[in-house]
C-alpha cells in the first residue's frame, strides 16, 4: 500500500483499519520512501501472511494512534469479488497481524466478555499453581502494562500474561519445576503447549471456538542477584522488589502484580513503557537471548508458522483429508505387507496417514502442531479408519523417550515414514529424531525419510515461514551411526512441491533414504 507522509510523521505509529476494524499497526518510518526523500509518498508492503485474504472490496484507513494528524482513507478492490474483504478465521473471528508479524487475534475481536473469561482463567491457573507449586505468581507483559498504565486491558493484545518467581536459583531446578507445573496444569484439564522449559502457553475454548490464550513465563533470581524472566528480562533485582505481590485491579477484579511494577515494565519494554506504542517490538540483548536459549531451550522452534499454516491456510484446508496422498507415500506403501504398522512423523494435516489407513495399514501419526491432529482424529473416527493422531515434539526429549518406550512395548516391527521432515528440523532436534528411530526400529522394520539436495526453499525461517533446507547425506549418516542406525538404501527423485510463502510450485531434487537399526548404540 502507498500513502503520503511528512517528516514529522515518521516516528508516528498508525493503525491500519479494514472497514473500520484495526487489523495492524506499524510505524510510518518503516514504510519505504518512493523517491528517497523524507516527505512524499511511501510504500508499506502488506504483511507476508495477508495476501491470501485480500479478495474483495473494502475501505482501508490509516489512523494515527496518537490522534494527531489526518486519517487517510481509501477504497480498494482485490480480485473480482465485490464482497467485503474477509480477514477472519474459520470460526468467523476477526484476525489481526500481531506484533510478531503473524496472524493472530485481538481481544477486541472475540465475543463479548473475553476479558472476564480471561480473568476467570487467570484465577484458575493461579489456583492450580498455588496448590501444586511454591512459586509466586503475578501478571506481566501486556496484562500488567495495560491495566497499570491505562487502567484497562489493552484492546490490541491477543493473550494474557502471567509470570512467576521460582524459589529456586539454579536453572536446572527452575526448569524441572516448570516441567512439573506443566503437568499439574494438564491434570487440571487445561490445554498446555510447551514453548520452552520456562514458557507455557495455555489455550482455552468458549462455545466450541478458540478463545484466547494465557502465557506463563518462568522467573528466578540466581545466586548473584540476577533476576531472569523469560524471555526479555535480565536485571539486578532483589527478591523483596518482586514479592510478596501487590494487588492490581483489572476490570474490577484483583490480580497480583510484583511489588515494583514499574521496575518490571522498564525491564520488559524499556524506559519508554509509559508512552503507548502499538508498533512496539522486543529488542532483547543477544547475551540475554543466549542465556535463555542455553538454559531453557526452545521447543516452539518454527511451530508458530506451522500453526498459522494449518489454522489460516484457506485453500489447503478445503482439500478433503486423505484424498491427496503424495507420490512418496504411494511408493512406501508398495513395500508394505498388508496390515503393516506405520508410524508417520511430521504428518501435517494427515493426508498420507489417512490414505495409508484406508489401504488397511495401522497408522500412528504425529506432528507437533495440535490443530491438524484434532481435525484428523475426528476424521479418522468418523470414517472408522485405523489411524491415531497425536502431538509429539521432536525438541522435547522427554516425550521422545516416553513415546519410544510406548511403541517398543507394542512388540511389533514398525515402518517409519517421514516426508519433508528432515529439511524442517533444526540441528538441535535431529539427535532426538535419531534416538526415536533407534527405539522404534530395534524390533525390526525400517524408516523412510527424504530431504532436498538441489536447493533450499527457506534456509532461515527467521525471515518468515517454516524452514526447508538442503542436507548432506554424509552428515546424516555419521550422526545416525552414533545411534546404531544405518542407511540401507537411497534413491533420487524430482518432486514438484509448494511451500508456505513460496509463490509457485517448485521442482526439488530429493534423496529418499531407507534407514534400519544395525547395532546397539555406543
Amino acid at each position, binding site marked *: 500500500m502507498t500513502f503520503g507522509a511528512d517528516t514529522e510523521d515518521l516516528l508516528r505509529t498508525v493503525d491500519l483499519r479494514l472497514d473500520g476494524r484495526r487489523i495492524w499497526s506499524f510505524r510510518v518510518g518503516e514504510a519505504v520512501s518512493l523517491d528517497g526523500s523524507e516527505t512524499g509518498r511511501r510504500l508499506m508492503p502488506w504483511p507476508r501472511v495477508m495476501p491470501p485474504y485480500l479478495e474483495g472490496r473494502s475501505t482501508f484507513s490509516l489512523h494515527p494512534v496518537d490522534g494527531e494528524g489526518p486519517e487517510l482513507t481509501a477504497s480498494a478492490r482485490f480480485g473480482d469479488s465485490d464482497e467485503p474483504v474477509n480477514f477472519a478465521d474459520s470460526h468467523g473471528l476477526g484476525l489481526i497481524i500481531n506484533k510478531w508479524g503473524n496472524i493472530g487475534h485481538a481481544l477486541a475481536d472475540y465475543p463479548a466478555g473475553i476479558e472476564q473469561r480471561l480473568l476467570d482463567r487467570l484465577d484458575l491457573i493461579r489456583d492450580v499453581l498455588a496448590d501444586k507449586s511454591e512459586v509466586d505468581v503475578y501478571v506481566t507483559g501486556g496484562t500488567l502494562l495495560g491495566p497499570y498504565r491505562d487502567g484497562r486491558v489493552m484492546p490490541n493484545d491477543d493473550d494474557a500474561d502471567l509470570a512467576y518467581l521460582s524459589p529456586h536459583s*539454579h*536453572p*536446572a*531446578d527452575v*526448569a*524441572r519445576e516448570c*516441567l*512439573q507445573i506443566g*503437568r499439574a496444569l494438564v491434570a487440571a484439564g487445561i490445554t498446555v503447549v510447551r514453548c520452552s*522449559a520456562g514458557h507455557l502457553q495455555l489455550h482455552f475454548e468458549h462455545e466450541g471456538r478458540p478463545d484466547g490464550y494465557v502465557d506463563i513465563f518462568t522467573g528466578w533470581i540466581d545466586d548473584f542477584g540476577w533476576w531472569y524472566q523469560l524471555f526479555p528480562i535480565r536485571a539486578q533485582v532483589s527478591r523483596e522488589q518482586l514479592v510478596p505481590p501487590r494487588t492490581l485491579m483489572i476490570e474490577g477484579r484483583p490480580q497480583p502484580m510484583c511489588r515494583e511494577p514499574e521496575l518490571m515494565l522498564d525491564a520488559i519494554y524499556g524506559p519508554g513503557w509509559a508512552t503507548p506504542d502499538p508498533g512496539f517490538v522486543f529488542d532483547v540483548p543477544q547475551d540475554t537471548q*543466549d*542465556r535463555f*536459549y*542455553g*538454559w*531453557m*531451550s526452545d521447543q516452539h522452534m518454527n511451530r508458530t508458522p506451522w500453526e498459522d499454516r494449518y489454522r489460516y491456510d484457506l485453500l489447503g484446508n478445503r482439500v478433503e483429508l486423505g484424498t491427496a496422498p503424495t507420490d512418496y507415500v504411494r511408493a512406501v506403501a508398495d513395500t508394505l505387507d498388508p496390515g503393516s504398522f506405520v508410524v508417520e512423523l511430521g504428518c501435517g494435516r494427515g493426508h498420507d496417514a489417512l490414505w495409508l489407513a484406508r489401504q488397511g495399514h495401522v497408522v500412528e501419526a504425529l506432528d507437533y502442531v495440535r490443530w491438524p491432529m484434532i481435525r484428523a482424529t475426528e476424521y479418522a473416527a468418523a470414517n472408522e479408519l485405523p489411524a491415531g493422531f497425536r502431538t509429539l515434539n521432536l525438541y522435547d*526429549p*522427554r516425550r521422545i*523417550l*516416553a513415546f519410544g*518406550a510406548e511403541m517398543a512395548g507394542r512388540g511389533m516391527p514398525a515402518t517409519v515414514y517421514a516426508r519433508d521432515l528432515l529439511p524442517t528440523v533444526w540441528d538441535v532436534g535431529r539427535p532426538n529424531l535419531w534416538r526415536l528411530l533407534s527405539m522404534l526400529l530395534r524390533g525390526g522394520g525400517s524408516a523412510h525419510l527424504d530431504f532436498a539436495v538441489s536447493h533450499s526453499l527457506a534456509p532461515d525461517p527467521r525471515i518468515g515461514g517454516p524452514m526447508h533446507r538442503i542436507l548432506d547425506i554424509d552428515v546424516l549418516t555419521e550422526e545416525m551411526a552414533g545411534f546404531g542406525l544405518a542407511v540401507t538404501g537411497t534413491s533420487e527423485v524430482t518432486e514438484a512441491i509448494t511451500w508456505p510463502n513460496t509463490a509457485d510450485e517448485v521442482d526439488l531434487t530429493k534423496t529418499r533414504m531407507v534407514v534400519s537399526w544395525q547395532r546397539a548404540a555406543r
Partner: protein
Amino acid sequence: MAARSTVKRLAGGPARRVRGLVQRAFVPQLAELMADRDRLNRELGLAFESVSAAHQGIADLQAEAKALRERLDMTLLLAEANQEEIRQVKAGLLETRRQSLRIAELADVVTEIVLPLHDRDIDPEALKRLSADTY
C-alpha cells in the same frame, strides 16, 4: 646659534605652558594607559604560559592517544587472533547451560517415566543390596 637660542627662548614659554596643560589634562589617562599596558603585558605573559601549558597538554594527550591507539590495536589484534577461541568458549558456555536443561529433563524422565514403568518389577532383595557407600 644665537638665532636658535632666541627662537628657543621665545617659544619655550608657550611650549611649557602647553605641555603643562597637556600633562594636566592627560596624565591621569596616561597613567591609566600605562597601567593597562603593564597589566596586559602581565596577562600576555600568563597567556603565553597558558599556551605553552596547552601545547604541553596537547602533546601529552597526543602521546596518550598514541598509547591508547597502540593498546586498541593490540587488543583488536588479540581479539582477531582469538576468534576461534572465543567461538569455542561461547560454544562451551552454551553446552554448559544446556547441561542444566539436560539434568532437569533426565531427572523428569526418571521420576515420571522410568520409575513408574519399573516400580512393579522392583525386587525388595535387590534394594536391600543397595547399601549406602558412605556414612
